[in-house]
């Protein structure tokens, strides 16, 4: 998670207007859901990898790491999709070519969709996306919650890490029973700290005139219509190519 955040803040496309990244990510995501997956999916995967690695300069390794977890879940699901259970004459398991085909389609489609989100999260910090949420009319309360959670995740991740290291230094994780005990203590401790932190932050915010609304300045970024249009045209071309390939016309 820290790696994702680090690249989001430091990649080559950090200063581009978030809409230039959100629109193609969303467009490709939509395309991955509606277009024939076996031909369009690989095209989408290739193009998101290309823009993330060559465009934004995020290391391929990081991208693969981000994709690894959802990919593992997808692969774990493949057997269940490929095999069909039949209760008609007793109980039988069948491995059908239709089932295999469906499993393959689902996996490719899902992987393509995940790659779109990976591109977005690796190139765009949350701070940039929030103003867009505001513009499309997400209520202020929800946006504030998103921001606070985002900020506190890092705070508590760090506390959890140092807490765990401190426990490990006193051999808290050498045996399974002690590890479970230590983890319980740590969780309880973090919960208390979260409450105390919330109270202190209330004091800190009140000192700065907090009246119930967390208003901050918008970031100054200019939208390049040229880049936005180019990305949309590319998505159209990918969709077209995918469809043509699926029909065997290309």
């Amino acid at each position, binding site marked *: 998670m820290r790696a994702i955040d680090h690249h989001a803040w430091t990649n080559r496309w950090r200063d581009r207007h978030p809409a230039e990244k959100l629109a193609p990510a969303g467009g490709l995501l939509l395309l991955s859901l509606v277009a024939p997956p076996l031909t369009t999916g690989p095209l989408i995967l290739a193009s998101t990898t290309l823009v993330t690695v060559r465009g934004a300069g995020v290391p391929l390794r990081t991208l693969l790491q981000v994709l690894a977890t959802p990919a593992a879940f997808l692969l774990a699901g493949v057997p269940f999709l490929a095999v069909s259970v039949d209760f008609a004459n007793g109980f039988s398991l069948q491995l059908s070519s239709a089932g295999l085909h469906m499993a393959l389609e689902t996996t490719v489609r899902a992987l393509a969709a995940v790659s779109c989100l990976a591109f977005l999260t690796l190139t765009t910090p949350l701070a940039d996306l929030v103003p867009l949420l505001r513009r499309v009319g997400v209520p202020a309360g929800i946006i504030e919650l998103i921001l606070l959670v*985002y900020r506190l995740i890092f705070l508590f991740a760090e506390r959890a890490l140092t807490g765990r290291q401190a426990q490990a230094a006193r051999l808290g994780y050498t045996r399974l029973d002690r590890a479970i005990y230590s983890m319980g203590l740590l969780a309880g401790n973090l919960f208390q700290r979260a409450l105390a932190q919330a109270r202190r*932050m209330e004091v800190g*915010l009140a000192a700065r005139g*907090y009246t119930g609304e967390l208003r*901050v300045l918008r970031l100054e970024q200019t939208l390049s219509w040229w880049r936005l249009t180019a990305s949309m045209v590319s998505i159209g071309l990918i969709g077209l190519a995918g469809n043509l390939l699926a029909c065997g016309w290309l």
Partner: protein
Amino acid sequence: MSPPPLLAVRRLEYAYPGGIVALHGLDLTIERGRKLAILGPNGSGKTTLLLHLNGTLRPGGGEILLDGRAVAYDRRVLDQWRRRVGLVLQDPEDQLFAATVGQDVSFGPLNLGLSEAEARQRVGEALTALDIASLADRATHNLSFGQKKRAAIAGILAMRPEILVLDEPTAGLDPQGVNQLLEALQQLHEAGTTLVFSTHDVELAYGWADQVAVFHDGTVLAQGDPDAVLGDRTLLRQAHLQPPLLLELAQLLEAGQGEPGRPQPRSREALLARLRERLRDRSA
């Protein structure tokens, strides 16, 4: 008649829920343009006192006077009060909430009702004053501790308070971080901001403040000129503090050959210069 002090605390009493007495008949006077150090050991209730200075905590007894008038605790008065008295908490994590430094600093100015353009200008000023203008677009959680500390101060500074109250501003900073911070604070002082800070560091209070209040057991034992207050051994012993090394050395140096009227050296450099001078005299 002299004008009333900017902020004054009279016979302040405060007990935490559960009956633990934190402040007991405390008096403190904050004059305009001062650099006041509130000196006391850890856990002596300094933070509790500072939380009273901007109305976060309500005293159980006694009163707080702003420009000589007793404060009230309704929304309107509190807002005005916190505009004038900016409180910087010890742990910057308790204060920073926004995703980028610039956005975080803009929070206070926008709460003051300033326009976005004005707020943007205030953010720029505050970041420049603390020498962190280059961090404006950085993620808050990726800063070093010293940078976070300065970002938290900038967040208060952008509201242009008359009094800047800092809880243990140098705690957790390395020597370079301390120097950078003190330099920034010195500039604020020269621009007319009244500074109040708590510390357990006698050397810092002696070397940097122009007035010292010794805090002990929920009350202020003495408030006044650093040389007078920190030269009083009985008082310091009572407050579990040691006299500043700088002052002790200077007193030793002057012993027997006093030059009354000559100010005590208040920094390393001044003390070393005095020592060199004395060594030269002796060899001559």
